Every structure is written in structure tokens, then in C-alpha cells.
């Protein structure tokens, strides 16, 4: 038998071309021009979900701000579950990374004197969020992508879907991927692989996340034996548009928008978040952290003080007092989205909003250099869990996280690849196995079941079991249901037998990824018998530092189910304390 095809052989391979992936690729290309670096992505890089980030990116630059305060905000925002050594490194490096983006052309909004402007953000005690109006992620991504073009040596595999990691001799040696246009299944060999595939919001029915956010990198790592960390922590953003789940940025509230219940009352004042003031106060009311605001919604709902809508209960986000000029200058995308998708104008109308799944705090467990315990495997961005976000991420920390840890992972992977051995011959056999596996899926006759219905059932199960408030009972039931879906999925065939652009096949593979991730989320949530940050158990309503000031790791057992282990949180200078907002 001849060797199966290898599309290419590289020193460092990025899986994913969003902010973290492109930052890592540029880091390799800049620091080690002697190394061969490539990016494989299931979409063209400029389509990556970074593009949808709106509000901004935190980095200490303003006069009167200090790294010490950004660290403390992030530690307390994480409900003390973030690793403090990682948070310190992150906060120290974020401003330089944002400046680098400035040098690469990112059109940051400016003060009249030409310096970069900063705005307030939830849970932050100082104004430190850099922004490009309310399209920050879009501008960052395009600046990174266009800058990456300058490095002609960065090889790209655009619209290739990675189906597995190649692991032999205890180390990662590349990936197997499907080229969408041809349907070819090929190996891409690499000494080091960095996973930067973003989050997994599509595990839930109602999310701000794009269609592509299916947790692919997390599933690849998990199946290859690398642990996932903190998977029980899912962030609900308090302000999504009903029906679509489109994000209305926290920057609205930073600029002074109010959250109102059906009586026009700023209800956050009833939830230990401070007193209402006409202009926004930092770390208070509408500028509280996302976990607390989303929880307050559920309580309002329980009191019958939310507003009925065809798409479930909502509250109102009020921008009317901000005026058209401010909205058009600083929040133009919000106005555009409301006009288009809600047919309302925030200059004159209230915006209906409800909490929506937005961000995954957990992910592939890495150290501060993006390295996983599996040799040759690295991860960065939302895919990864370093962890700096702990039990609740602060708004505007995720974009700089992509930059800081993308750059670090790129540097670390380059150093590793510089001295790693070339791929072993056995990866050819693994590729042949994978080709056979995919052929089986394609050749299988479809049954009276479908990937779409399994996906929908999974999403409903997750909302039921792992929403803003959780119970042991619902989690147990949810896990059982996911187990049934795991049994059903492999038996569902793919009707489409075409090789070209077989999106039905990709959808089936993504569903398999999401099911594995969903199981990890529920298994971890069941084990964590306490309430902390975004993980709220009504059967265990208090934070329990005695038992649970720990990260939980998910490893895949031989039978395919997740096993949960615990490792300590790194506490350096900030001992656990009470989270105080608005007082």
C-alpha cells in the first residue's frame, strides 16, 4: 500500500485562525523565521468568531490606573478561581499586546489628543477597556489577518476541517483534516500543534456564538488524552436579543444604558449591586459582573417582573437618554443590529434583552505558556483554560487573553518545535484509520433519526441542566440523556455522499465534538457541590472554599465517559474574599 497523502509538513501548526491563532502564527513567523508555520481553519480566518466581539479589550494604559487594580478586578471577578500567577502575567502583558495591534493598524477609538481612548466595563474599577467603536473584535481580527499576509511564509489551509490529532510516541505530530472543496482527507504533519478554535456556545440553544463555535479544539484535545479544565463554568451574557441571541454589547451599559424591568425600574439595585445613579459608577449596578447580572434576571423573572415576548421573558435595555450622537459615535453597530433584527431604534425605543450563553470559561488545560500535559500540544484563547477567568470572566478580558496567550503559545511551540524530533512513520497508519472511519460515516444509510434532532435535543438538555441555576437532579438527568444521544449519533448516517463541500458530514462531526464537550460540562457541574461565579447550584447555594477552591479536570475514560479530578488553584497574593460590588 502506498503512503496515504500528506498535505504538508510543518514545524508549528495552528488549528484556528481567529485572534489567538493568528497572533500565535505571527509570533512564530516573527521570532523564528527559520521555522515553517501554518494555519488550518474550517473558515477563512477573517470569518472567525473574534469578528463578532464588540465592546473592547482591557489593558492598563490610562493615567491613574494600575496593574494591581486590574489584577484584583480579575481575581475577584473570577470568584477566586483564576490562577493568580497567570492573571498577573496576563495583566502585565496585555497593554503591550494592544499597543502592538495599534502598530499593526487596528483603528482604536481615540481621545481628541490622539491617544488611545478607554471606556468603562463591567466589574472593572477603572476605565481601561480599549475599543474600536463597538466593532472591536472585527477590527482586531482584520488587522491581525491583514498583518499576517505580510508574512508570506505563513502557509494557510483555508476551509479545512480537522477531524483528529495524530499522536504517537507520547507526542502530538500533526492532524488529519478534510479539505471542504475536494473532500480529500489528508494528514498535515507538524512537530507542534496549537489549538485556537474558540468556544463552544453552540452546545446551547440560545447563544451569542456563531455557527462555527462547536468546541472542536476542546474535543480534539480531550480525545487525544489532554485534560479539559473548569468545564462547568459557562458565561451567560445578560443582554442578548431575543430570538437571534445576537449580542448587545456591555459597552452600552459602560456608556450609561440602564436595565429596566417591566415597571421601568432599575431592578439591579435589589440584588446587592449598589444604588442607581444617573451616570454609570464603576463596579456598580449595570457595571456589575456578568454572572451576577444574569442571575438577577432569573430572580426578576421569578417575581413576575419581566416582560413577555414571543421569544420568552425579557427585560429592557434603555439607551434613550444617551442620545443619537453618542450612540452613532460609540455604539453604531448596536443601532444597526437593533434596526435590522428587532426593527426598533435604540435612540427612541427600549431594547428587549435576555441572558444568553456567551463564553466558555473552561477549556483545554494549559500552563502559562499554552502548553498542555500532552507533548507537542498547545492551546490559546477561548479554547484554552490557563486559567485567568476562573468561575466568571470579566468583559473585555477575552480579547487581550487571545493576544497575550496566543503570543506566548506561539513562542513556546516554536521553541519546542525547534528541538522536537520529526514525525514518526506510524502517523500514516493513523491517517488510514481516520480515512476509513470517515468513509464509514459517508457510506452509512441514513436512519429514522438525524444529526439535527440529536443536536436540538442536546441543546435543550444543556439549557435544562446547565443553565444559570443548576441542581444535582437536573444534572444527573441531563447526563443520562446525553448518554443516550451518544449512543444514537454514531448510528445516524450522512445522506449526502458528495465529496465537494459536504457540510452535512461536517455538521455530524461537529455534533460529535459538542456531545463530548457537553458531557464534560455536566459531569464537572455535578461534581462541584457549591455555588461560585457562573456555576450556581440551588442545592448547594454557598461558595465552599474548603472543598472547592480547586480546578476540576476532565479526562476521557476508556469507556468514553469523562472522569473528574481536582487540582489546586494558584493563590499568590490575593487570599479568597468576598466579592463586593456597588458598596
Amino acid at each position, binding site marked *: 500500500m502506498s503512503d496515504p497523502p500528506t498535505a504538508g509538513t510543518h514545524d508549528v501548526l495552528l488549528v484556528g485562525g481567529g485572534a489567538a491563532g493568528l497572533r500565535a502564527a505571527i509570533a512564530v513567523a516573527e521570532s523564528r523565521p527559520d521555522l515553517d508555520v501554518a494555519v488550518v481553519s474550517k*473558515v*477563512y480566518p*477573517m*470569518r*472567525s*468568531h473574534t*469578528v*463578532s466581539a464588540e465592546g473592547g479589550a482591557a489593558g492598563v494604559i490610562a493615567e491613574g490606573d494600575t496593574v494591581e487594580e486590574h489584577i484584583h478586578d480579575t481575581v475577584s471577578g473570577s470568584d477566586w478561581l483564576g490562577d493568580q500567577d497567570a492573571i498577573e502575567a496576563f495583566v502585565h502583558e496585555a497593554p*503591550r499586546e494592544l*499597543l502592538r495591534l*495599534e*502598530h*499593526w*493598524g487596528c*483603528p*482604536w*477609538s*481615540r*481621545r*481628541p*489628543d*490622539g*491617544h*488611545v481612548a478607554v471606556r468603562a466595563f463591567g466589574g472593572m474599577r477603572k476605565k481601561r477597556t480599549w475599543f474600536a467603536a463597538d*466593532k472591536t473584535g*472585527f*477590527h482586531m481580527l*482584520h488587522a491581525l489577518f*491583514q*498583518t499576517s*499576509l*505580510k508574512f*508570506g511564509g505563513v502557509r494557510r489551509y*483555508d476551509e479545512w476541517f480537522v477531524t483528529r490529532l495524530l499522536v504517537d510516541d507520547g507526542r502530538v505530530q500533526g492532524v488529519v483534516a478534510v479539505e471542504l*472543496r475536494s473532500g480529500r482527507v489528508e494528514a498535515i504533519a507538524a512537530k507542534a500543534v496549537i489549538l485556537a478554535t474558540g468556544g463552544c456556545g453552540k452546545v446551547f440553544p440560545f447563544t451569542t456564538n*456563531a*455557527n*462555527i463555535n462547536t468546541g472542536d479544539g476542546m474535543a480534539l484535545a480531550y480525545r487525544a488524552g489532554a485534560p479539559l479544565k473548569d468545564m462547568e463554568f459557562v458565561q451567560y451574557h445578560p443582554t442578548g436579543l431575543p*430570538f*437571534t441571541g*445576537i449580542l448587545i454589547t456591555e459597552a452600552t451599559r459602560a456608556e450609561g444604558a440602564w436595565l429596566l424591568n417591566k415597571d421601568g425600574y432599575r431592578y439591579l439595585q435589589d440584588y446587592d449591586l449598589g444604588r442607581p445613579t444617573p451616570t454609570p459608577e464603576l463596579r456598580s449596578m449595570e457595571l456589575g459582573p456578568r454572572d451576577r447580572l444574569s442571575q438577577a434576571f432569573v430572580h426578576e423573572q421569578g417575581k413576575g417582573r419581566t416582560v413577555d415576548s414571543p421569544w420568552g421573558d425579557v427585560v429592557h435595555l434603555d439607551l434613550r437618554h444617551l442620545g443619537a450622537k453618542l450612540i452613532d459615535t460609540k455604539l453604531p*453597530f448596536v443601532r*444597526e*443590529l437593533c434596526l*435590522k*433584527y428587532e426593527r426598533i431604534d435604540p435612540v427612541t425605543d427600549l431594547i428587549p434583552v435576555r441572558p444568553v450563553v456567551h463564553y466558555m470559561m473552561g477549556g483545554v488545560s494549559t500552563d502559562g505558556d499554552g502548553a498542555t500535559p500532552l507533548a507537542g500540544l498547545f492551546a490559546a484563547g477561548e479554547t484554552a483554560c490557563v486559567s485567568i477567568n476562573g468561575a466568571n470572566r470579566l468583559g473585555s478580558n477575552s480579547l487581550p487573553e487571545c493576544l497575550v496567550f496566543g503570543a506566548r503559545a506561539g513562542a513556546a511551540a516554536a521553541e519546542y518545535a525547534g528541538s522536537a524530533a520529526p514525525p514518526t512513520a506510524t502517523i500514516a497508519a493513523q491517517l488510514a484509520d481516520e480515512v476509513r472511519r470517515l468513509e464509514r460515516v459517508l457510506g452509512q444509510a441514513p436512519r429514522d433519526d*438525524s*444529526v*439535527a434532532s440529536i443536536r436540538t435535543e442536546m441543546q435543550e438538555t444543556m439549557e435544562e441542566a446547565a443553565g444559570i441555576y443548576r441542581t444535582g437532579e437536573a444534572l444527573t438527568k441531563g447526563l443520562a440523556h446525553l448518554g443516550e444521544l451518544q449512543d444514537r449519533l454514531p448510528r445516524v448516517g*450522512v*445522506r*449526502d455522499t*458528495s*465529496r*465537494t*463541500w*459536504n*457540510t*452535512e458530514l461536517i*455538521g455530524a462531526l461537529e455534533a460529535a465534538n459538542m456531545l463530548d464537550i457537553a458531557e464534560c460540562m455536566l459531569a464537572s457541574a455535578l461534581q462541584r457541590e457549591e455555588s461560585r461565579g457562573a456555576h450556581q447550584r440551588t442545592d448547594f447555594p454557598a461558595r465552599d472554599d474548603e472543598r472547592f477552591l480547586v480546578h476540576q479536570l476532565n479526562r476521557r475514560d476508556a469507556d468514553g465517559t469523562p472522569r473528574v479530578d481536582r487540582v489546586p488553584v494558584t493563590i499568590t497574593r490575593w487570599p479568597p474574599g468576598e466579592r463586593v460590588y456597588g458598596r
Partner: protein
Amino acid sequence: MDERITLRVTRYRPDKDREPSWQDYDVPLRQEWTVLDALNHVKSDIDTTLAFRWSCRMGICGSCGMNVEGEPRLACAAFLSDYAPGPVRVEPLGNFPVARDLVVDIEDFMAKLPRVKPWIIRDEERPIDDGEYLQTPEELDAYQQFSMCINCMLCYAACPVYGLDPDFVGPAAIALAERYDLDSRDQGARERLDVLIEHEGVYGCTFVGECTRVCPKHVDPAGAIQRYKLKAAQESVKAFLLPRGLRPKARRP
């Protein structure tokens, strides 16, 4: 009562079909649904084999460009109710080879993009430790609209010149070149002009203005092309008037 509408969609599978054909799908006509929602309904519940690109569903990733009733649109921004009572014709973007169904091949654009050098070019890089380049809000305004391009390819689909001459660099790439030229931090205008005054650069454009009309992000590529033609004309006047040694050097890409 559930109102319905017919989607009339182009099907083409290169490994099966000799030529494209129409397929009709009967879908609910819902006020809040876009053409993309309708296509996703088809994909989940009616025909799993229909192929199309999509991701953000909020008009920012640029994936879901297609022709809706003959007009290049983002499927996520075209509301079904605007086409009632239907049928709604949904076709792949024009001027591109069709890969399959509604998916077109945009590799030509991806190859052209780096040629216009869409990145900051400096004679001398400022060290990061020296802080940011100052840029006033007015200086930001000068290039901001050209920075809004989402690479959705609607302008290429609408451009009659690109349809006739695939060597034409095309609206989005030229708008991006102009975006960097107008950025106060950039010093690369000369290099980009050298690329664009090649015959297939800007000269193909006959100012039809379709690119600007169809842009979902209100970028004005036609304006960018016009400015380049002016710059190119000024260059040729300089070349005519100045002794050879003083002429700006035109480098080949």
C-alpha cells in the same frame, strides 16, 4: 395560520450534476426570519444535502453572500417577508466559479488581497515601548469607512468589470489599499500605487458604481477607485514633466 413561501434555490453538485438546476423548498414565512434562517430550516428539516456558507448571522463575518432575487445580499440580512409572496430565488454570487450549490470559489480574491499590501508600511518601525502612534479622531475618520469592509464579495459579484476581466484587482481590495493609504500611521502609499497602476489595477473600472451600491457596510469602493485613478494620473503627469532621475521610482511587484 402558518403562511408559507417558496425558496427557489440553485443546486449544483460538481461530482453529480452536469449543470446547475433549480430546486423549490416550501418554508414557513415568518416575520423574524431571514433568508439564512429559511436555508437553515431547509438544511435541518427538509434537505440535509443543501450546501451554503454561514457563521455569525449578524452581518459581520461576511460568509453568507449570495444572490437573492438577482441581487447580491448577505443572506443573514435579507428578510423573507421583503420577498413575499415569493417565490424567492436564491443563487450563488455571480462572477465567481461555483464550487457547489450556493458556495462559490473566492480564491481569486484571496490571492489578490496580499498584492495590494493591506498592512501598515513604515520606513521605520516605532518601538512598542515608545507607545502608540498618535492619531486624532479626525485622522481616524479619514480612513474609517474603508476599514469597514467584511470581505463578503458582494461588490465583486455586482461589478460588471470584474465579470468581464478577472484580472481586475476589484473593489474590496482597492478599498483596502485606500484604507491603509489614508491611515496617518502608514507610509506605504507609493508601494500600493505601483501595484495598482499596472493595467489590471484600477484602470479596468468604468465607474458603474455597483460596488458601492451593494456594499452592506456602506464602504465606498467606487470612491476609492476614483481616488486611485487621480493619483495615477498625477503620477503620469509628474513622470512627463520631471527629468528621469527625479521621477518617483515605480517598482514592479
